[in-house]
């Protein structure tokens, strides 16, 4: 028997609220299965089991907030029989007022009858908050999500979608005073970045990066591609960083309690801006083994899901290094703040035509500034410089990525 614990979904997370149980006691579970969803400051995140077995029992009820590391469910190994459940977990240190899963409002707002007009998608800014599994169920049942009540303080779960599918009006939860997603994410960023600047002795390096080759490669690769298959700079940068890390493992991994553990895989965190909300840096897994096209597809999928507020737990906790690229409407350079427990962050500024000396003459080249912020407890500037130059070198031969 083993216990499934509230996962840590980032350095800044202290507690989470269970908002969904997608598996029920008696269900067979496989490593990687989503068994539920947890609401954190960063939104609703699916949680996955790490082993095969049978879900014996839930130890946490929907709506309950528990600290990171608290047991949430009991999982039996195949062939095992049930053991008595351990004591219920202690409540979170600073319990927030937790809304009841479903509270009938005095005047339940029945969804309006479906309009005869062709169904249009809900507008991203105004749609109901819904757990990922409930969203999938809604899609299976053909429920128009724009028909769901828009209560920013309530997260819709599977039970409510099932009720809607059966034609039952969904009661709107009584609004509870709660910070907005924006201020939630702001405080998550504040906690992680304050910890970083308090604990990590950063050092900073920069290097001019000529992007002429990358630009020519992208133009030629994208010329015959449909929009669906086009590549962006981000995928090229990602491959160049992942490839360079093979020789410089001291920039890829986690530094926990003064002990740095390099990771043989590159789980490349990419800084993604979420409109009006903030910034997250979830991971593209195993970037070292992916082709450019695969990494681009993964990036597109990740950005799409992140902007809809759908993360997977591992994407937030397992990034081993971060890449922050400003795209073509930014500034010349950026020095990132390391996201603990990572030990490095790569910054790439906005490409511009600028004077560069080549073969003894000044010419106009498309270039930007490549930067590294790294943890001085784990590496030194000498190795950092070699690492940056390795990235630069990779970007001069993009066709080999």
């Amino acid at each position, binding site marked *: 028997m083993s216990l499934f614990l509230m996962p840590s979904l980032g350095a800044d997370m202290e507690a989470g609220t269970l908002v969904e149980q997608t598996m029920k006691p008696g269900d067979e579970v496989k490593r990687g299965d989503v068994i539920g969803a947890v609401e954190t400051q960063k939104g609703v995140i699916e949680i996955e089991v790490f082993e095969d077995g049978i879900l014996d029992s839930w130890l946490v009820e929907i709506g309950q907030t528990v600290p990171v590391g608290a047991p949430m469910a009991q999982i039996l190994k195949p062939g095992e029989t049930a053991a008595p459940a351990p004591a219920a977990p202690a409540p979170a240190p600073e319990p927030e007022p937790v809304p009841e899963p479903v509270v009938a409002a005095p005047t339940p707002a029945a969804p309006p009858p479906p309009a005869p007009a062709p169904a249009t998608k809900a507008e991203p800014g*105004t749609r109901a908050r819904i757990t990922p599994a409930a969203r999938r169920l809604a899609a299976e049942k053909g429920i128009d999500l724009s028909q769901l009540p828009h209560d920013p303080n309530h997260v819709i779960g599977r039970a409510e979608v099932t009720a809607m599918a059966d034609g039952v009006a969904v009661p709107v939860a009584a609004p509870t005073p709660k910070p907005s997603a924006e201020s939630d994410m702001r405080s998550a960023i504040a906690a992680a970045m304050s910890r970083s600047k308090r604990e990590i002795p950063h050092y900073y390096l920069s290097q001019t990066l000529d992007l002429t080759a990358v630009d020519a490669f992208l133009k030629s690769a994208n*010329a015959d591609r449909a*929009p*669906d298959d086009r590549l*962006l*700079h981000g995928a090229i940068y990602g491959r160049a960083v992942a490839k360079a890390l093979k020789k410089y493992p001291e920039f890829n991994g986690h530094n926990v309690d003064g002990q740095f553990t390099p990771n043989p895989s590159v789980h490349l965190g990419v800084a993604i801006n979420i409109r009006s909300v903030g910034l997250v840096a979830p991971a593209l897994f195993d970037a070292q083994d992916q082709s450019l096209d695969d990494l681009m597809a993964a990036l*597109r999928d990740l950005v799409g899901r992140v902007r809809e507020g759908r993360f997977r737990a591992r994407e937030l906790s397992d990034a081993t290094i971060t890449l922050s690229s400003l795209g073509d409407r930014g500034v010349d350079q950026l020095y990132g703040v390391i996201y603990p427990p990572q030990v490095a962050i790569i910054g790439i500024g906005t490409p511009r035509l600028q004077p560069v000396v080549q073969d003894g003459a000044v010419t106009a080249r498309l270039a930007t500034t490549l930067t590294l912020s790294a943890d001085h407890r784990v590496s030194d500037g000498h190795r950092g410089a070699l690492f940056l130059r390795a990235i630069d070198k990779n970007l001069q031969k993009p066709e080999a990525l």
Partner: protein
Amino acid sequence: MTQDSFETALAEELHRIAPDIELDDVDMSADLREEFDIDSMDFLNLVTALGKRFGLEMPEADYAQMDSFDALAGYLRAKSG
């Protein structure tokens, strides 16, 4: 298709990507990506959506002709005509 419907379609697709931007506050002849605060991934998604909606290839070599709201609407009109 009338001029109006290209503008309407473009406004709809932009609203999907940038729901926080009011069309009234936008300079229709200024840089589209700055006016709507959209990054390269947003722009690629916009081009993908418009390409599917109007059955156009929208090649990357034509991106320079799509650099403002008015220019992009004009591009759609010219290519669909």
